[in-house]
């Protein structure tokens, strides 16, 4: 718990019927997802970090800056943070431009690191400046909300399910902007979400919340591949791997993605060779075989070593954790198949991967 870097958060809150009890050491850079079902306490934790929820006795420091401890409670307006609400919560009496300036002009000149222009360009909202919030679409409103938070040059950006109120198409409209934010600004982000696809796409780290407690925390790839968690993720159990475009097959419109452990064919989305991207492989899309199969429609078959296996939520199913080179992989099988394969740790098998999703 070095006080210098990272986000150190310890909160205990008791409401009737709900308690929050967390002790977290989060990285001071990149996107950390607070992931969990509704009612798991992730939004309460975010609000406590923002100071919107008064949590006496809590401690919080952000990259060495103490925001709250036994002696100090900095009210929200004295915490250098940005907050994006689920509904953009723009001020209806102000134009987009005035909304953007609202936070920025309250930040001393010397502390401004993100210019208004930069925030406007990043979210591509230059053409909306003169409008009132009532005349924006849901997606535009949320983009303005994000830009407004960025324009205060926050040391920590808190996002509370910023996409949850939007339909699928609008989500797809905003996600690329969130990725740009990640790539172009060096601001640590805490991102509350209950959507595994958003987490897989955006997060570097993940904290899994359940009943007011953090049940797991760590780098995204390692944490998603833990065998004790996927059960809770159900159908969304799977791994996310960092990969790079190694080659493109023009004839079949496929891209060859290289990751630490092998190569995967995915549909070509036009990414250039050398581009970094994430791929997501769900456990239910992986089947196992003793020998590589021929005469199959499956494009991706990789040699894998069994690490461990556990019973899944349904008694018919089992989850197998494998290692492909240096990368983890999860496979969901019936227990009967696992028995037939005589799955044991250290065993070499062939993982047949039916679907690979290229994300981001």
């Amino acid at each position, binding site marked *: 718990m070095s006080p210098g870097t990272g986000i150190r958060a310890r909160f205990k809150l008791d409401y009737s019927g709900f308690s929050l009890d967390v002790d977290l050491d989060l990285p001071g850079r990149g996107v950390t997802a607070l992931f969990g079902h509704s009612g798991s306490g992730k939004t309460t934790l975010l609000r406590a970090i923002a100071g*919107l929820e008064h949590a006496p006795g809590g401690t919080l420091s952000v990259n060495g800056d103490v925001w709250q401890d036994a002696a100090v409670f900095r009210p929200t307006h004295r915490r250098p943070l940005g*907050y994006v609400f689920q*509904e953009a*919560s723009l*001020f209806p009496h102000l134009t987009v431009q005035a909304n953007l300036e*609202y936070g920025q002009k309250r930040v001393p000149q010397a502390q401004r690191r993100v210019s208004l222009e930069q925030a406007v360009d990043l979210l591509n909202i230059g053409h909306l400046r003169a409008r009132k919030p009532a005349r924006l679409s849901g997606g535009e409103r949320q983009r303005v909300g994000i830009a407004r938070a960025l324009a205060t040059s926050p040391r920590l950006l808190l996002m509370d399910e910023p996409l949850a109120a939007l339909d699928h198409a609008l989500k797809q409209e905003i996600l690329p902007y969130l990725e740009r934010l990640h790539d172009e600004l060096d601001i640590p982000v805490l991102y509350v979400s209950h959507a595994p696809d958003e987490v897989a796409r955006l997060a570097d780290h993940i904290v899994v919340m359940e009943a007011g407690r953090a049940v797991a925390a760590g780098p995204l790839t390692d944490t998603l591949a833990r065998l004790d968690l996927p059960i809770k993720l159900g159908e969304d159990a799977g791994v996310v791997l960092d990969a790079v475009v190694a080659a493109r097959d023009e004839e079949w419109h496929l891209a060859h993605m290289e990751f630490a452990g092998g190569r995967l064919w995915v549909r070509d989305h036009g990414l250039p060779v050398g581009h970094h991207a994430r791929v997501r492989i769900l456990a239910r899309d992986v089947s196992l075989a003793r020998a590589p199969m021929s005469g199959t429609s499956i494009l991706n078959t990789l040699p894998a070593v069994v690490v461990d296996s556990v019973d899944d939520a349904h008694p018919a199913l089992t989850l197998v954790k494998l290692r492909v080179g240096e990368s983890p992989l999860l496979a969901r099988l019936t227990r009967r198949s696992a028995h037939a394969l005589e799955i044991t740790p250290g065993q070499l098998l062939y993982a047949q991967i039916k679907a690979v999703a290229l994300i981001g």
Partner: protein
Amino acid sequence: MLSDTDWSAIRLTLELASVTTLLLLVIGTPIAWWLARTRSAWKGAVGAVVALPIVLPPTVIGFYLLVAMGPEGPVGRLTQSLGLGVLPFTFAGLVVASVFYSLPFVVQPIQNAFEAIGERPLEAAATLRASPLDTFFSVVLPLARPGYLTASVLGFAHTVGEFGVVLMIGGNIPDKTRVVSVQIYDHVEALEYAQAHWLAAGMVAFSFVVLLLLYTLNPTGRRA
């Protein structure tokens, strides 16, 4: 048509209503804010006290204010010890009484406006570095503007229309406490119906115009 004493009554009425409304906006704002935001057990009691003038006969309010502000009353003793004399039968006394009498008509619209704003804009402002006071002036007041317009109009109009309280506290002193409603009463007592008509019709026209302005300037359901 209108005599000098009529004009004097009109001038006095407008003066009283203006001063009262301004005072009420200043006094009513913190009360409305507290009522809109508090979770205190006292909320119900305070709200009821503020609303009392709506249901009480004006003579009851006037009677108690007269007793309280009189030479033997607690307020009277205070004003005397401050060298201000006693308030009944003065313009200042009328202002104090009108503030009490019109309080709910100003507090309630403002309170409703504050409640309609909700928690979220205040939280958003706090995350954008605005202190609570800053938030009040930059977010709450602009968003509550329709409530303030309603409160001003109702407070003003209600003060213009008061009669019982004025009679109890102010009596009927020309140029000092004789407002339009009392002047009309005097005309009727003296069987000067023509004079009474001019003032009474004037009041009807005034009230109509005020309410018309309120409803056209402040249509409901236009909030973003």
